[in-house]
Structures are given as structure tokens and as C-alpha cells.
């Protein structure tokens, strides 16, 4: 699975009006929390998610409520991710890459992984429950998936040093919290399948994506974590060969593809899976399709289990050529344990010849569709204190504890558009010139040449044959 996820930058743009308040008390230092979550999978893949959250109190406030006229959404469907994306991202970290968890961010290791996803979120968050004042939050996340099985010669065991070629020596001195979590949910009471060393001081239980998980916790601010050795090199050993006993499939997942043949029409299909055993839930599907795919909105069909599924809400904004893309937003109810197919036909538009990209036969990328849903949990949870709980569970805090929020991006699509022959102008010039030259040449010859009547010279054989024919006809011979 070699896949580079699109670099999605979520920028929540709010209208900011700069005004400095009169209060000039000792300003609090920006609070920083850093966190690394390691999730070993039975297949041998290890997913590592870094999260850094900087929160600061600023007098920048948005005036009144959020004006939705200023809401912007932009997607770059594909970008080749490389170190150039990582360097400015690392510069935003308070400890840069000098201390704390960020020392593990070595570009040459991070880009040799089978999955890479990097994000920056900026958003205002409420300081208290009444939301009278606002703090700003900068959250930087980086998720990579290492394939420990192939790089470790068939062994699924891994250590921090083998993955990142570094170990953790200290927490970032600016951080108020610095934790490493290792997912050890595979260990049941009587069946210990994995072993983590050094042994964790504490464990943490949480409901993540609707399922109960157990984590081994390492607090880097606690000096006891580093006791024994100077650095923390987490190691994990699988106790027994565990076959793929029930792959963890998320309750909501989706696929998207283009079908059809030829270069005139096609069909965009999105397949939504709800694998929840007994709960149905609604999904908000947002599609932004570029104008050069002309959607036929009347062909929009949504089918679940062979029956038509009528969306409870549709918002459609048609595209304008070269100005604005199609915007299609739908609220679809997904029945429990079902597959829903959303399809719509389109026609490919002809672009102006200067509008083609440098490699037009490669195709044009269409941005992924976005799914937002409140997915019901399998297990109930107690309401948690969001401020205390680890960062990985607080990206989208919701008050209702029986469900969790999921935002999914489907894969971007590659669509071929009718591509002209770009040497055509030259061919046309050549052809026209040839036609002009032929006409001109004969005309010129006709006008400038002199023509003489010449006696036909015939060979003796021809004359002999002609005389024979003449004699037969009774005409005097030549």
C-alpha cells in the first residue's frame, strides 16, 4: 500500500479585527501540549501520530457571529509531498526539531513510509463553558505508517530507534504535557499478545472511533520515565503469531471512482459503507466538482440495498465556466450494515487550448468528496473532561457521549478530458500553405509560361501501325 495522502490544510478563516485591549497583565506563556500515539497493527504495520497543540489567548476576536459569506473552502486535489512540506511545518513547532517529540521528525525516515499525512488546523476555541472569551489553537498533526514487517525481515517487532533512527531524551521544555501512548488493546486479560518495554507506569482507557481502547502511557515530563537509561527507546514484541483475527474496519468508510467509456460522458460514483451492526446514521456528503465536468443533476441516483434512498436535504450550486465549481451537498441516511451508492453522470467539457496543464494526457484531478457524520459508538462512555483527555480524542469534541464525529475524505479522482493534438496549429499552417502554394504555383505557371504548338513526333512503329489503320479506314496514309 504505497500511497501519499493529499496534504489537506484546514484553515478556518474567521474575520479578524485587530484591536489591542487595555489589559496589560503578565501574559501567560502559550500553552503547548505534545503527544505521540503508536498503534501497532497485527499485520506488522505501525501507525505513528504526532500531535502538537499550541494554544494562546489573544485579543483578536471576531466581530459578532461568524459571517458565512467569508467562509472559504479550497482544495488542491494532489500534491507530491516531500521534505519541502515538512520543513515549514516543523518551523511552526515551538521547540522546532531541537527538543521533545519533534526530534523524531527526521525527513529521511518519515518519507520512506507507506502512508504520510500532515495537517495544520487553526481555530478559535472557547476558553470557558460560556464561551465569553476565545483562545486560538494551532494544532499540527502528522501521521505516518511504517511497515515493520517488510523492513524487519519478517518480524513484526519494532522499536522507536528502528522506526525513526532516534530515541526520545527529554520533553520539550515549553510543553505543559508531553505523552507517548501505545495502543495495547490487543492484550486481553488472560491473553497477552504484545509486550511493551520499558513497562508503562500507567495505562489509559478511552473510546476511540466508537471502540474501547487501552493505551500504555509514558509521561515524558516525569523524570521516572527516563530512569535507568538516559533515553526512552520504546520497544514492542509480539508474543505469539496472531493471524488476522478480525481486522478492525471503521463503521463509516467510503470509496469513489469514475466509470464510463469514451471521452464524452462518464459517471462519478461514491460508495458509502456503514458497517455498524445495528445503528443507522445520517451522513453529510459534500462534493466539489470542477466546472469542466458538467454534471447532469437529473441523473443523481442514490441507492441502498437495491432501493432508492431519498436524501433528506440537497443543496446544489451549479458551476459557472471558469468561475466556480459545482457544489453539491446532501444529507443521506445510511441504514445499519449497508452499502449506499451515490452516482451522477457528467459530460466532459472542451477546454481552451491554453487552459490545459503541461501534461494534459495525464488527466485532471478532481478533489475528494468530504463525508461528515456523527457515528454512534458501540460502547457507551462517560462524559469526559476534554481539557484533561489526550489530544487524539479531542480533535472534534462533542457533548453527546453516545457517538463520535468523523470526517472522511475519499480518494481524489483522475479524469481524462478530450485532449486536442497540440501540434494542430502547425499542421493547419502547413496544410494551408501547401494548398496556397499549389494554387499559386499553377496560376503562376499559367501566367508566365509561353505555350507553343509542336508537331507530334511519332516513331516508325507508330506510323506504320497508324498507316495500317488508315488503310483499313480508307484514309490516305501519313
Amino acid at each position, binding site marked *: 500500500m504505497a500511497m501519499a495522502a493529499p496534504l489537506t490544510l484546514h484553515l478556518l478563516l474567521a474575520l479578524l479585527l485587530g484591536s489591542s485591549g487595555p489589559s496589560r497583565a503578565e501574559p501567560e506563556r502559550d500553552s503547548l501540549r505534545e503527544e505521540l500515539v503508536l498503534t501497532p497493527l497485527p499485520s506488522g504495520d505501525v501507525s505513528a501520530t504526532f500531535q502538537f497543540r499550541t494554544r494562546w489567548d489573544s485579543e483578536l476576536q471576531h466581530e459578532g457571529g461568524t459571517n458565512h459569506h467569508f467562509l472559504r473552502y479550497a482544495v488542491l486535489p494532489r500534491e507530491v509531498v516531500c521534505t519541502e512540506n515538512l520543513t515549514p511545518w516543523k518551523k511552526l513547532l515551538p521547540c522546532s526539531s531541537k527538543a521533545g517529540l519533534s526530534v523524531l521528525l527526521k525527513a529521511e525516515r518519515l518519507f520512506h513510509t507507506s502512508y504520510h499525512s500532515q495537517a495544520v488546523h487553526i481555530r478559535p476555541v472557547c476558553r470557558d463553558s460560556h464561551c465569553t472569551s476565545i483562545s486560538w489553537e494551532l494544532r499540527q498533526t502528522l501521521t505516518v505508517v511504517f511497515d515493520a514487517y517488510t523492513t524487519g525481515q519478517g518480524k513484526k517487532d519494532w522499536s522507536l530507534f528502528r522506526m525513526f533512527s532516534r530515541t526520545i531524551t527529554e520533553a520539550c521544555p515549553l510543553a505543559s504535557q508531553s505523552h507517548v501512548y501505545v495502543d495495547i488493546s490487543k492484550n486481553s486479560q488472560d491473553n497477552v499478545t504484545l509486550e511493551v518495554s520499558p513497562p508503562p507506569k500507567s495505562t489509559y482507557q478511552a473510546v476511540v472511533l466508537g471502540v474501547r481502547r487501552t493505551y500504555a502511557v509514558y509521561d515524558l515530563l516525569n523524570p521516572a520515565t527516563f530512569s535507568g537509561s538516559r533515553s526512552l527507546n520504546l520497544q514492542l514484541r509480539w508474543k505469539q503469531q496472531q493471524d488476522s483475527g478480525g481486522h478492525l474496519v471503521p463503521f463509516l468508510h467510503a470509496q469513489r471512482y469514475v466509470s464510463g467509456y469514451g471521452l464524452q460522458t462518464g459517471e462519478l460514483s461514491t460508495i458509502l459503507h456503514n458497517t455498524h451492526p445495528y445503528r443507522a446514521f445520517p451522513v453529510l456528503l459534500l462534493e466539489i466538482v470542477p466546472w469542466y465536468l458538467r454534471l447532469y443533476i437529473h441523473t443523481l441516483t442514490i441507492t441502498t440495498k437495491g432501493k432508492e434512498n431519498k436524501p433528506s436535504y440537497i443543496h446544489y450550486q451549479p458551476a459557472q465556466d471558469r468561475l466556480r465549481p459545482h457544489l453539491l451537498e446532501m444529507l443521506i441516511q445510511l441504514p445499519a450494515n449497508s452499502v449506499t451508492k451515490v452516482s451522477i453522470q457528467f459530460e466532459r467539457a472542451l477546454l481552451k487550448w491554453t487552459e490545459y496543464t503541461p501534461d494534459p494526457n495525464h488527466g485532471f484531478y478532481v478533489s475528494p468528496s468530504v463525508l461528515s457524520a456523527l457515528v454512534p459508538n458501540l460502547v457507551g462512555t462517560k462524559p469526559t473532561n476534554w481539557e484533561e483527555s489526550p489530544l487524539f480524542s479531542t480533535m472534534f469534541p462533542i457533548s453527546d457521549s453516545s457517538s463520535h464525529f468523523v470526517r472522511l475524505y475519499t480518494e481524489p479522482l483522475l479524469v481524462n478530458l478530450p485532449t486536442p493534438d497540440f501540434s494542430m496549429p502547425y499542421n493547419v499552417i502547413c496544410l494551408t*500553405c*501547401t494548398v496556397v502554394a499549389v494554387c499559386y504555383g499553377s496560376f*503562376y505557371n499559367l*501566367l508566365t509560361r*509561353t*505555350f507553343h504548338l509542336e508537331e507530334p513526333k511519332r516513331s516508325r512503329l507508330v506510323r506504320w501501325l497508324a498507316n495500317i489503320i488508315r488503310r483499313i479506314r480508307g484514309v490516305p496514309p501519313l
Partner: protein
Amino acid sequence: MAEGIMAERGRMDRVRGDRHPERDRNQALTALTMDPEKIRGKHAALCFATMAVMLGLPLWWKTTETYRASLPYAQIGQLDSLLLRLRVPVSVVFIQGSLPIVDQQKLPFTVVNERDVPLKCKMKLKCRFQQAYRMAGSHEERALKMDTIQEAEAALPSPKEDTVGSLNIFVIPEKSSLLPQDKMSYVGPKRTAFVRGAQGRQALTVIGQRVLQVAQSMSLTDDVLAAALGDRLPEDKRSDDKRRPLKASLGYEITFSLLNPDPKSHEVHWDIEGAMESFVQPFLSLFGALGNFSMDSQILYYAMLGVTPRFDAASSSYTLAAHSLPHVINPVEARLGSSAASLNPVINFLLYVPERAHSPLYIQDKDGARVATNAFHSPRWGGIMVYNVDPKAYNTTKFPVKVNVDMVQVMEVFLAQMRLLFGIPYPQMPANFVLAGPPSEGLRSWELDRLLWARTVENLATVTTTLTSLAELLDKIGNIVIKDDVASEVYRAVDAVHDAIVELAAGNLNSAFHASREAVTSSEKAFFDPSLLHLLYFPDDQKFAIYIPLFLPMAVPIFLSMIKIILENQKIRKDIEKVD
């Protein structure tokens, strides 16, 4: 008709094969010259050739030519040898007793002094001091009865002509106690100065010279001009340290960064917001005319200098030598990241709190002495100041140590550096002058005027260079397109230059500066317009590839028939000679 018959006969003769040499040659000659078909063909070929040359070529030339709107080349050429007259209105006020009674009678209304400023290029610069003489009014008399010069200055009614670029010089009696005995003149923070009067026969001339001296040192002096014009001055006038101020621009970004390379030992607080309000804003509000300023601040942790300081055992401190300072900036700049946000030039001010292992840290100058401010600046880039933590603070066990930055001390240095970066050097005055300290904003009014003058002259010089090089480029490279809007920008720039010259000569400094800035904007817009380059990279081989399929089949028959006609004509001429 007759020729036709003759030709017919000639052909008949040839067929019959008569052997009369004389007749034969004559007939062949007439056949050659007179054959109507051949003549018609020849005419047709000539017609084609004429059409191609007269109609085809101009049509092709006209349709494929690069579009050039007409430009004021003559005026651009004249810009090179520009004559700038800077009029400095000086109002000279005589206090009772500063002038002999005799001279008071014959006091001239105005006196004009001109001073040439030497420049390297053809541009000429003339400073024109227009001194308007008058006697003091009763208000002014009363004000100057005060005890000290500062009080007197404060009590003076604000003069009517207190506009940007003008000067007010008061001539006080020779024995006046307002000035210390050995000082001749006083230069105030506003546009006001005091000069001691004189007695005797040559009083007016002496006073005139003194007034001129004061006016010269308060207006565009050579060092200010050197800072503004840079390499346009003759070599001997250029300042040694090659101080280059920031280029004139429409706006500037000012970034204050606090570098804390050792957050484990230091927890540094700085009240940058308060400092901006109380120090930077008032200073920059004076510069409002120069451009828009936007300011931001940041704190960077683990930002190291590029140089490891040397340990000095004698004073148990660390030192940064002057020669290693150039290497300090680059590694830091990679982390600043401020230049990405805007097109305007960025001015960086860094406050560096050295790590505990390297403190105290001092900067040494070339002679090995400690720099008193512990700061240095890099022209057109910004300034760096090293802020040492009080060593007593380390006598605790609790780390990080809290450090509260003394913003007054820091801002003093940064504002002084800002003055230098903007090209306002410390004024150089003759020894017998008293120079008043700057007002609370940190800038004397006449210093601002000087800056405006310098910027105006710099702008005009920049426009001249831009427009002349544009004209030269157009002359050299034929493929550059000049669209109508680009041409109108050029016209606007030229007009604005003329406006600025007129305003300078009239003494309206503000409007002259605005005109010169407009000229710079227009000329840069014209010069960097992307439409200029549209056809620049159209290679010749592509042109040939397009033209050859059309031109080759059309031109070859014309050329061949032309050659044939010429050859035939030559042959006929030879034959006729033979016949003769």
C-alpha cells in the same frame, strides 16, 4: 499585327530550312525580342514580383510586427541630464538690536543663494536658499526676552510658514545671553534656529553667511545625500562605512523577534505590545508620508546564532568578534520566516538572550573593545541586540529563571538602529553650534524634512534609471511589446517627474515627494509589466518553421523567373552588340 506575321514567317523559314545566314540571324533576333507570348509571360512574372514586394512584404511586416505604443523617448532622454533645483524657503527674523540701525534701513526683501551639489551622473542638483528678511514682531520680541533658549523657543508663536521643508532663523543680538558665550548658533528640534547677530560695517554680510551656514546644515547635507544616492555620488564623497539605507518603498514590514535559545534556563518575557505603543508607533507616525508600516512580533525558541562565541578568561565572559558578525545572521534568518508574507522589504529586529552556557555575551568591535550597546545592525536587513541575563538570577535552584526584559533599554537601541536603517544619520554640526536634543518622538522636524528631500531625490534618480534602461532595452531588443497601458504608465511617470521638479523648485516638499513616489510606482509598473515579455522568448527556428512552407514555394518561382529574365536580357544585349 505586322510583328505577328513576321514571326510566323520566321518559323516557316526555319521549318523549311533555308540557308540564308544574314536573313536567318535577323529573323531570329526579331523572334527573340518580339515574341508576344514571351513578352506577356515576362510582364506577368514582373507583375508578380512587384506585387510580392510592394504589397506582400509590407502586409507581412505590418501584421507580424510587435506592437509598440509610442513612447516619449525624447523626454526620457532629457531625464538623464536633469537639473533639480531644491528651493529651501528660509525666513530670517531680526530681533531688535541684532542689526545696526543703518543696515536695518537697507534690509533687502529676499536674498537667494545657490549651492551646487556635485553628482557623478549627468543629473545636476542645486540647493537654492531663498532667504526672506524681516524684522521681528512684538510677540517674537517678547518671547525672546526669556531666560533660556528652550523657553524662548517654546514661547515663540508658531510661524505662519512652518511648513514641511521651510526654516525659520532668528537673529538675536550679539551680546544675547540666550546662547553660551562660545557658541554662535542654536539648532532647535523644530524647524527653528537661532543665530547671533553682528555689529559693524559688514554686519549684514556676516549675518548672511552665518544664516546660510545654519540653513545648509539643516537642509540637504552631503552625508544625507550620500546615504540616499549611494553610488551616484563621486567616489570621494561616498561615506566610508558604505551605509546603505533601505530603498524607498511603498511599505515596510517590521518584525521584532525575541530569540531564546535556551528555554530550559530562561523564561523570557517582553512587553512588546506596550513598547510598540509607547516607542515605535510615535516614531513611525512621523514617517507616515514615507509609506505604510506593518509590525509584528514573535518569540523563537532554540534559535541559535551561527557562531560559537569565544571565552574570554580575563572577564569570564563570552565575546563575539566583529569579523564573525556576518556569519551570525544567516542561520537565524532561516527561522524568521517573515519575508514570505509580503512583497515589501522586511526590517528585522532581533533580541537575543544568550544561552546560560554562553552568558554573559558581549560584542567586540574591530579594536577589541566592548560595544556599549551590545548591538549591531546590518544595512537593509535590520538589527540584532544581545540581552544578557543578570548573573545574580542564576543563584537559584529553580529553573527556568524568569527574565523580564527592560524594554526601554532595548527600544532605545532598536530606534537608533531604525534611524540608521532609514538613512537618518546623527547630524554633524560645526563646533560652535548648539544642537538641541530630539523631541520625545525621537526625530527632529528638520531631520524629517532632510529625509523627505533625500527620498525625493533618490526617487527621481531611480525613475531616471528605470526609464532610461527601459528605453535602452527597447532599442536593443525588438521583440518587446509595449501595450497602451504600459505606455500610459511611462507617460504618467514622466509627467510625475516633471511635477516633482516643479514642486521642488517651488519649495513644496510634500507634494514633490508624493509626485516622485508616484513616478517611481508608475515607472516600476511599466518596467516590470509581464506583457513586455510575451514575445521575448519566441525563438527564430519556430518562426522559420511557420514561414517556410508558405514562403519557399512562393518565392522560388519568382526568383527563378527573375533570374531567367535577367539572363535573357543579357543575352539579347550581347546579340544586339554582335549584330551591330
